């Protein structure tokens, strides 16, 4: 009995010290490249299992958030963007180039003449919150059809006008399956009004099958490429370069 009590105390003491050691251990493991690589190995599995086979639920008018939450980087404040806003985006051109047969520079009027789509979908932020907006614009696949991607095009890269405050421009990328999903939209309007500057005017992406950080705002240029290894840190997006998943369906 006495012996059991001693053993019990040894066990309790070792449990307490093991728990106290967890902080430093988890910090060391969290900064170990091999450990993080192993943890990230499930991302391709999640991507393969979920992919783009689904179709996001579309809501009714009464579900719409009239004051759709503003998120992401601060609205661009540089002279070039200020001039675009001042001119009602009449001088805006959406550059679409790279591995395409017919590179283009689309005005807003030209984008509005392409097939249009309206969808009321939920925006799921990686932080955990959700909001519902009514988005209208051009399905990305219509723009891709207009420029005719070459056979070596694998990814669509979105280059944006906003930066993180330290001068790093936002960017994102999708593969062609994700880009061609019918609900992947180049949104020009939110809640029946042209996009305002805080929501990514004049053109932003809406991809409801993935988390909000994929839905790049303030798009200046769309580039088709074979791979994104040579763009910035090579992970395919601003947040991806900083540890977030490229496949953001989870």
């Amino acid at each position: 009995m006495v012996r059991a009590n001693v053993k019990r105390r040894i066990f309790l003491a070792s449990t307490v010290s093991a728990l106290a050691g967890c902080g430093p251990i988890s910090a060391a493991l969290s900064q170990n490249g091999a450990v993080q690589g192993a943890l990230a190995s499930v991302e391709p599995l999640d991507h393969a299992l979920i992919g783009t086979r689904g179709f996001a639920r579309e809501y009714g008018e009464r579900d719409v958030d009239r004051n759709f939450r503003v998120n992401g980087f601060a609205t661009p404040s540089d002279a070039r963007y200020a001039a675009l806003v001042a001119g009602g985006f009449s001088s805006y051109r959406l550059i679409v180039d790279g591995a395409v047969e017919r590179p283009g520079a689309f005005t807003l009027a030209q984008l509005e003449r392409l097939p249009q789509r309206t969808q009321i979908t939920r925006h799921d932020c990686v932080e955990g919150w959700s909001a519902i907006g009514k988005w209208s614009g051009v399905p990305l696949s219509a723009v891709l059809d207009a420029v005719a991607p070459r056979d070596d095009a694998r990814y669509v890269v979105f280059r944006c006008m906003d930066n993180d405050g330290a001068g790093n421009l936002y960017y994102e990328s999708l593969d062609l399956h994700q880009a061609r999903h019918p609900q992947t939209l180049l949104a020009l309007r939110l809640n029946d009004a042209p996009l305002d500057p805080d929501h990514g005017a004049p053109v932003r992406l809406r991809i409801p099958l993935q988390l909000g950080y994929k839905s790049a705002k303030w798009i200046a240029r769309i580039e088709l490429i074979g791979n994104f290894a040579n763009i910035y840190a090579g992970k395919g997006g601003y947040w991806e370069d900083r540890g977030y998943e490229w496949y953001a369906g989870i």
Partner: protein
Amino acid sequence: MKVAAPRRVIYRYALLTRASHWIWFVAFFVLVGSGLQIFNASPNLDASDKSDPARRVLAIGSPTDGVGATTLFGHTFVTTGWLGWTGDGMGSRGAHAFGASITIPGYQDLSGGRRWHFFFAWVAVICWLAWLLSSAVKGNLREMLLRPSDVPKLWPMQAYYLKLRKTPPPHGIYNPLQKAAYTLVLFVIAPLVVVTGLALSPGIDAIANPLTVVFGGRQFARLWHFAGMLLLLGFFAIHVFQVLTQKVVNQMRSMITGWYELT
């Protein structure tokens, strides 16, 4: 002179049972810590589909620097140092719902928390499937699952624990209360936590929207996911208390080596 009674030992837990037990222990530890890290990025739980302050059940925040406040069903409590205004893992305090000492990683890092969480979610689920298959094939599952015939024995068993009865009701390897606890945890709460976790993913929601709808929407699923975690933590606390208060060395040895000493 007393003669020592011969030691009688039985092989109580098969290797797969022991391995699953400890793999779950590690996975649960990581999933709770990384889950609290993920929670911190948006420390509110709403009983709704989209975020809706009017349907907020739990909010952990910091109304002003130096103060932590927790609001549960509209009632606000000052929780400075415990919730809302807590340690940042780098020697000072800040506006973090759960303190860095109980999150994984032990500092603010949403992407890191997500990586730990999604990896160990797979570990826990694969381990559960392997354990389930093996237990079903070997027949141990039958001894563990609560049956209708066990229900009348639940109170007599509780009465025995409360010393209101001299003897426990007759039962097999597991008593009725153990069966109830294991059945509830392994076949109700743990699957609920997995499914509500899946319902949070926009990709899965697009494939299986009814899954999100049955839980009341995405934010509601996040609330169920959190509540399920609390129930599992409650089971864990009672489980550890029982082990520590009932022949801890013998119990621990049997879950490590398989051998249990009968006394």
